[in-house]
């Protein structure tokens, strides 16, 4: 008999149906992956069934767990199951744990919620769990708070909480999405090992098919609240039957191949030399963020800047855009240096300013919420040109068209647009003054795959049609390999490797690059399959 059996599950939230007629099963000691994009309802189904969505959620259908129907179970019964028979791992390590309670107590609480145990036993068990999930020096760290741990470590604590009472089933909802690639790989490995050691069933929810393919035996594909396909993972991935699955399985874009003839000569547009920047923490302490950076961007070239969080890539992109100053070194635009070093505030020649524009990472924060799209897109013209009103309006219309948005969006406010639409407006704004270089800081990280694909195509067409250079900052190697002519790998503030993308990725020279490439999920499973 399967451990978890979901039959015709439907969920309505605030009288809007979000999940329709979903069915799947999970067998003991097996792993089920649920994939879908955001809004597909993949998380909602299980959260609703276990009572974690609150009173606003109306659930119908059946969810049999070990014989009991969770949908009709009393809240009390559900509470006894949660944390004891079913463990949970959630997505965001920065907000999953109570910031004010030491982690030892947070884990201990999971134990005492279901068993009467004395303090010593609880303490012993907590240390055991921390050891098991790979937290070094567990005994000393019991009284530390979540803020003292890195993202990966916090996720391990979360896993320890999930595992505390040896549950039969663990539900992991996007457990590695918010983590860097290298950390992601280690967490997935941990989950696999724990599952083998404890023999528990695992449901892994993710938008990332590669991640799911690492661990899952069976997979369910969801879209708009419905299941479109399900089956053993090998079959679904190698021979998908539904068109949506086919679409999901397609990579974001084809990797750039080595060129047939000689590589095009590109005159220099922006040159960064010996750039160093640090942040002052106190009067004595000075933390270096960027160290001796040398980077060149040619006209019409797309350069990728790859690094994990904390590598300094955002700082570098801000300096190149003229929003921050460096401590030492120069950044020149067509031969003229424009970033003052050692000063407190950036002073940039207006001509250069217009030529270097930025697309920010956060589509929500980069548009003024109280201004209409018309005003947001008119701003570049009002600030840097003398064009009269009607002409500005015309140009705004052209801009919207060039990013594929309908003209009547001018009257909308940012809050009425989706993340992808907002990002397109941000790109349109960056293009308004026909810049020579666009610095894009993680422009597609927060977006769905389909939208991301469109944005990437849009960016590529910018270079192809207008000759605009692009500095593409990202942690996603797949996108970088598809879009960028050259790539620079940034690690702890230092560029460890630089060169043509196809060459660097095919045969990386530096250890760190190799680690990054190896950490891409799906690569290890392929190895086991091939071996």
């Amino acid at each position, binding site marked *: 008999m399967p451990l978890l059996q979901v039959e015709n599950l439907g969920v309505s939230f605030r009288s809007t149906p979000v999940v329709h007629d979903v069915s799947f099963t999970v067998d003991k000691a097996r792993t089920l992956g649920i994939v879908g994009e955001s809004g597909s309802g993949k998380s909602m189904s299980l959260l609703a069934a276990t009572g*974690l969505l609150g009173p606003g959620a109306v659930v119908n259908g059946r969810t049999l767990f070990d014989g009991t129907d969770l949908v009709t179970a009393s809240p009390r019964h559900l*509470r006894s199951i949660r*944390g004891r028979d079913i463990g949970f791992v*959630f997505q965001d390590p920065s*907000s999953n*744990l109570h*910031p004010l309670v030491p982690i030892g107590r947070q884990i201990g609480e999971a134990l005492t919620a279901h068993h009467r145990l004395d303090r010593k036993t609880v303490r012993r068990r907590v240390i055991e769990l921390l050891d098991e999930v790979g937290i070094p020096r567990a005994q000393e760290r019991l009284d530390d708070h979540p803020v003292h741990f890195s993202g990966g470590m916090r996720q391990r604590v*979360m896993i320890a909480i999930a595992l505390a009472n040896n549950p039969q089933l663990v539900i992991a909802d996007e457990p590695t999405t918010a983590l860097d690639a290298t950390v992601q790989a280690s967490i997935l490995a941990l989950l696999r090992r724990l599952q083998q050691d404890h023999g528990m069933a695992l449901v892994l929810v993710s938008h990332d098919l590669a991640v799911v393919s690492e661990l899952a035996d069976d997979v369910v594909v969801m879209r708009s609240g419905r299941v479109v396909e399900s089956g053993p993972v090998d079959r679904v991935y190698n021979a998908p039957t539904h068109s949506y699955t086919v679409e999901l399985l397609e990579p974001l874009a084809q990797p750039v191949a080595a060129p047939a003839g000689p590589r095009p000569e590109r005159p220099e547009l922006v040159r960064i030399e010996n750039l160093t920047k640090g942040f002052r923490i106190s009067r004595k302490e000075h933390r270096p963020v960027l160290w001796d950076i040398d980077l060149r961007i040619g006209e019409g070239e797309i350069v990728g800047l790859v690094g994990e969080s904390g590598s300094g890539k955002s700082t570098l992109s801000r300096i190149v855009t003229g929003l921050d100053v460096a401590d030492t070194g120069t950044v020149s635009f067509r031969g003229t240096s424009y970033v003052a070093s050692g000063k407190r505030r950036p002073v940039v020649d207006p001509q250069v300013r217009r030529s270097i524009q930025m697309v920010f990472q956060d589509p929500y924060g980069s548009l003024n919420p109280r201004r209409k799209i018309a005003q947001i897109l008119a701003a570049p013209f009002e600030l840097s040109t003398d064009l009269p009103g009607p002409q500005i309006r015309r140009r705004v219309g052209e801009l919207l068209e060039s990013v594929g948005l309908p003209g009547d969006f001018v009257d909308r406010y940012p809050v009425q647009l989706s993340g992808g639409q907002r990002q397109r407006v941000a790109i349109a704004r960056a293009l308004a003054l026909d810049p020579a270089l666009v610095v894009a800081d993680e422009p597609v990280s927060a977006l769905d795959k389909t939208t991301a694909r469109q944005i990437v195509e849009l960016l590529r067409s910018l270079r192809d049609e207008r000759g605009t250079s692009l500095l593409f900052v990202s942690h996603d190697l797949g996108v970088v390999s598809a879009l960028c002519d050259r790539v620079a790998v940034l690690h702890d503030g230092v560029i460890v490797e630089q060169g043509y993308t196809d060459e660097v990725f095919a045969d990386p020279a530096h250890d760190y690059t190799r680690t990054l490439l190896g950490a891409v999920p799906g690569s290890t499973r392929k190895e086991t399959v091939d071996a």
Partner: protein
Amino acid sequence: MLRHVTHLITRSVTTLVLVLLAAFVLTRIAYRDPATMLAPRNASQEGIEAVARALRLDDPWYLQLKHYLFRGPDIQGAPMGLMNWPPALGYSFRQNTPVTELILSKVPVTASLALGALVIWMTLSLVLGVETARREGSAVDHGLSGLAYVALSLPTFLTGMLLSYFLFFTLSTHGLYLFPSSGYVPLSENPFEWARHLLLPWLTLAIAEIGIFQRVVRGSMLEVLGTDYIRTARAKGLSERVVHYRHALKAALNPVITLGGLELAVIMGGAIVTETIFGLDGVGRLAVNAALEGDFPVVIGTTVFTAAVFVACSFAVDLITRWREPARI
């Protein structure tokens, strides 16, 4: 941490100094002819001038300030300015006692009033706030929050009068002398009477504060209840009571503490209205009477006292808030 504390102390001391200077200048400008106000009724011109001389009221203000700071009133020949030890806040023109002594004698009353009210309003606001947040949108929520609204809309003097009317006057006409109408009994003398006399004033203050704090607690709780870590708490299988009172409330307390410190300081500085209605001889009444009579050393003294209390409370709130946060490495 140490650097922060030093920074706080510097700021607090600067504030106090500024307050002192400002109060001094203010009273000096405001009371144009204090000698006439302070001299006995039918004093002759020489009498008034004698008063002015004795109190050095004819000196320019900076000399008066210097005198205030360093020399002070001559009490048996010993210098008693603010800069000496013990610091003296001058000498009341009217009552012929050192201001410090005057203020200190009133502090127990005001402190009893403030702290007692604080305990009452905090406990009730926390419970009301958590329970209304828990039942957001329900009839109970609307009802209780509405009541808090009403409490918020009642000025203190009105609440005090209404309470006095209903719980003292009406009851006493029926022969039930549950609450006294006025007066203060020191704690050391008779704890029961102390509480009995303070009950109505406590309620007066507490009702107004509950109106404010219930909303703050509820708002803060609602914000916290939407976070991921509360979902984790539920995922552990904890009861709703534990989730709300142990996890959520803990995270929601910061704005409550900050505001609580502020309000406490304001009340300590003189809940003048409450003291007036219930006949409590506290710092507030002392200050108001002094201001009405032109006794400006007392005015300056109470102002500095109030500022000192405010500064101390803010300092305490800052330290408490920092202490609650996990220490950064």
